């Protein structure tokens, strides 16, 4: 993946979540609203939020928090981490793929069968 130089490499998931809460809002939010939506503890929220202010990823104006340009870049760059659009690590490499077994006999997994219909003795 290509990161633009403005993307911070040391943001933890919680930071990204805070940025995303603002990104997903229309414009800006009061810090208190971000705190409530994050469901973080007060201590944890204030620590992370203060850090994002210091990094200038969030800027406050008249009591409303908005993303700076860098904040928006970071929020968007981190979208995959948050909403899992595509988890590349989850894709099987082509070498491991075989034709699907369609007309073959098939042994079912007993744990996955309905307990009612297939009552084990």
């Amino acid at each position, binding site marked *: 993946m290509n990161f633009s130089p403005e993307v911070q490499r040391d943001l933890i998931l919680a930071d990204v979540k805070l940025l995303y809460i603002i990104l997903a809002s229309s414009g800006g939010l009061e810090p208190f609203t971000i705190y409530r939506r994050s469901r973080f503890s007060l201590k944890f929220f*204030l620590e992370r939020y203060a850090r994002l202010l210091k990094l200038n990823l969030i800027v406050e104006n008249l009591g409303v928090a908005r993303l700076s340009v860098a904040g928006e870049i970071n929020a968007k760059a981190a979208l995959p981490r948050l909403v899992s659009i595509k988890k590349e690590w989850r894709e099987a490499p082509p070498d491991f793929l075989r034709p699907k077994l369609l007309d073959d006999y098939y042994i079912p997994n007993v744990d996955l069968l309905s307990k009612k219909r297939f009552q084990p003795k």
Partner: protein
Amino acid sequence: MKKEHFNLMLNIIRSQPWLEGKIDELEHVLFSDCQCDTSRQLISDVIDRFLYINREDNYRLIDSLASEIVAKYYGREASTLITAMGTGSATDSSQLVAYTLKPIMEKKKWRHHAIINDFGDVYKQYKKTKHNQIVLIDEFVGSGQTVLGRVASIHRQLTNAGVVDYSIAVKVLVSTEFGLGNVTAAGIDMTAQRLVKKGIDDYYPSVEAARHRDLMRLVEGNLSTEYEGRAMPSLGYNEAQATYCREDGNAPNSVFPIFWWAFNSDGEDRHVLMTRAMGDA
């Protein structure tokens, strides 16, 4: 947590970012020690007035204190005696300042001065090497009482031994304006790299200040009144109302005790924003 309370905390963190790691302690002072929003606002305003010195700032202050000594005693290096304000075997931050100065003076090519960590040995040093321009150094001055005592004691040491040709100057990193005023009023030459005001008296007209002092005493009602025979110094030792905190530092007792006194009125440990070794509270 109510929105106003959240915003109060957030504003404090914004003005004093070093409290970022002390959220629990801050919450405790604001919402357990304080019973009303007026006292919370006072605590928040007082915190806002604090001078915070981190490790780097502290080194820079010591370096500029060194430059001041070099400039003032230019050409008189061989008679300059720098001494920490501490005495005896008790550990003291003045000795930290003295020790940190040691290599800094070398960098400034000062090699013939003397530097000692016990002001009680000034005469002993004088007898040995004839250094007679004494510079008393320390980290912090609160009410100035200690300084007055130290200077008087050096005068006694030297005059009792019949020494007349000497000078004493006091140079510290940080002082309250109140302390600096007390020391200079006694005719003593003193400088500080940074000054702090009284956290309450210097910020309000006198009637309002009295009201705020009462409010602070009310909040201090949550603290134990004494520890091992030493009284809790209400509003700071000698009511100095100091607003100073150094990273890793042992809080001076002239700082408002609500921020460092370790025990509540039931004798239990409190959550404190600043640390002071209670052994010499």
